[in-house]
């Protein structure tokens, strides 16, 4: 059993919030450069080059890549041999978010209730926290700020087994087609298959944590990902929806077992600023 004071988590979360918003992953830069070479639209090429310039500037100026610095989505892998002491774990995470969004000059984008008052909570809390208990005595923390524009284009559909993989592919491609320029293409498409209604959505979001350099370890799903990516990039939507070949940079699938009667499919759309940073305590 390893004791960890929850106060140790606060500065870690603070830094992850800031770093995720200032510094885009190398995988995104590499992928956009790759697509730039293949882009047929002059406007599309121009947009991609401005995105690359922006990633460079944000890191240099220490300013957020996008003004929508997102809701703070926090994934925790908590080792089962860790004993948390010194206070409330969830409150420590929220305090880290509070400090990161204040000290990093990040935008506060949370409203207290979704419909009636919609008053800004002014410190970007509460964070959206998803915890998995795993073997070991460490805590892995991932902060993945999620913007509203792309999140709004996401969808869960309870499909039938009879719809088959063709049905899934059609649903995902249609979802991206209907999104057009709204989610800031080129996008990354997270797909959650199976589980139940809410688990499919969480799988879709978690799938977005993969690096764009990595293939799906399961060749069966890697093939489906490639097929969907090709179909999406044939839609013509292009960078920012202004027309072109680069609509998605990658498609990620995570799957889980499900009920004999069900086939839940979730699509979580991520803008080109696929931001996530991790640390281990």
């Amino acid at each position: 059993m390893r004791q960890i004071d929850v106060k140790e988590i606060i500065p870690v979360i603070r830094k992850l919030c800031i770093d995720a918003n200032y510094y885009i992953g190398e995988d995104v830069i590499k992928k956009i450069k790759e697509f730039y070479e293949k882009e047929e639209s002059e406007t599309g090429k121009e947009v991609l080059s401005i995105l690359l310039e922006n990633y460079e500037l944000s890191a240099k100026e220490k300013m957020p890549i996008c003004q929508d610095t997102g809701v703070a989505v926090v994934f925790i892998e908590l080792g089962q041999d860790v004993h948390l002491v010194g206070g409330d774990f969830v409150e420590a995470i929220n305090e880290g978010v509070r400090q990161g969004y204040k000290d990093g000059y990040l935008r506060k984008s949370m409203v207290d209730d979704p419909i009636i008052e919609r008053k800004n909570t002014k410190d970007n809390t509460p964070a959206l926290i998803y915890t998995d208990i795993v073997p070991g005595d460490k805590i892995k923390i991932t902060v993945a700020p999620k913007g509203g524009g792309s999140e709004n284009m996401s969808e869960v559909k309870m499909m039938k087994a009879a719809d088959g993989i063709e049905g899934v592919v059609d649903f995902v491609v249609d979802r991206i087609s209907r999104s057009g320029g709204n989610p800031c293409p080129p996008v990354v498409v997270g797909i959650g298959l199976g589980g139940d209604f809410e688990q499919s959505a969480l799988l879709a979001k978690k799938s977005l944590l993969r690096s764009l350099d990595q293939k799906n370890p399961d060749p069966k799903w890697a093939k489906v990902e490639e097929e969907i990516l090709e179909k999406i990039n044939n839609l013509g939507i292009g960078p920012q929806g202004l027309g072109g070949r680069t609509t998605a940079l990658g498609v990620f699938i995570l799957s889980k077992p499900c009920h004999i009667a069900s086939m839940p499919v979730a699509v979580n759309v991520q803008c080109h600023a696929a931001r996530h940073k991790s640390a281990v305590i």
Partner: protein
Amino acid sequence: MPKTKYLQTPLKEDELAQLQIGDKVFITGIIYTGRDAAHKRLVELLEKNEELPFDIKGQVIYYVGPAPAPPGKPIGSAGPTTSYRMDPYAPALLDAGLKAMIGKGPRSQLVIDSMVKNKAVYFAAIGGAAVVVAESIKEAKVIAYEDLGTEAIRELRVENFPCIVANDIYGKDIYQEGVEKYKR
């Protein structure tokens, strides 16, 4: 062929008439910010025949909720937000004299029709290129609805604010034509 144009605000009708979808535009002068919550309030004022917090005739509204300004900067990162959420409000503002909107993503047919009727245009700024855009903003001050925080209405002084003509005054739409061109 798309051209590069430099525009000064307030915008002039003859200059707007020359813009075509796909043109690269650099805007200099004063523009105003507004997004969901501010639009709701502006349209409520128009419905009550009350005065708006700024003279909207010939003006530009930029759909943005900027990040806080870091020390030494007039504004934080300030890229566009998705425009369709302002579609329910845009026709009333265009009827009141608004000449251009800047945002990202396609507009509804109702808004496109209203742009034709009012000889107004819609510019696409690049979503996510928020630091590049912020560099063109030289001054920013809140002029209304301070209580809305990032959603308050700001007056921005911009120099060569970069954007692309997405809808011209003739009803053409880059989001339809561009996609048709590259669809396979």
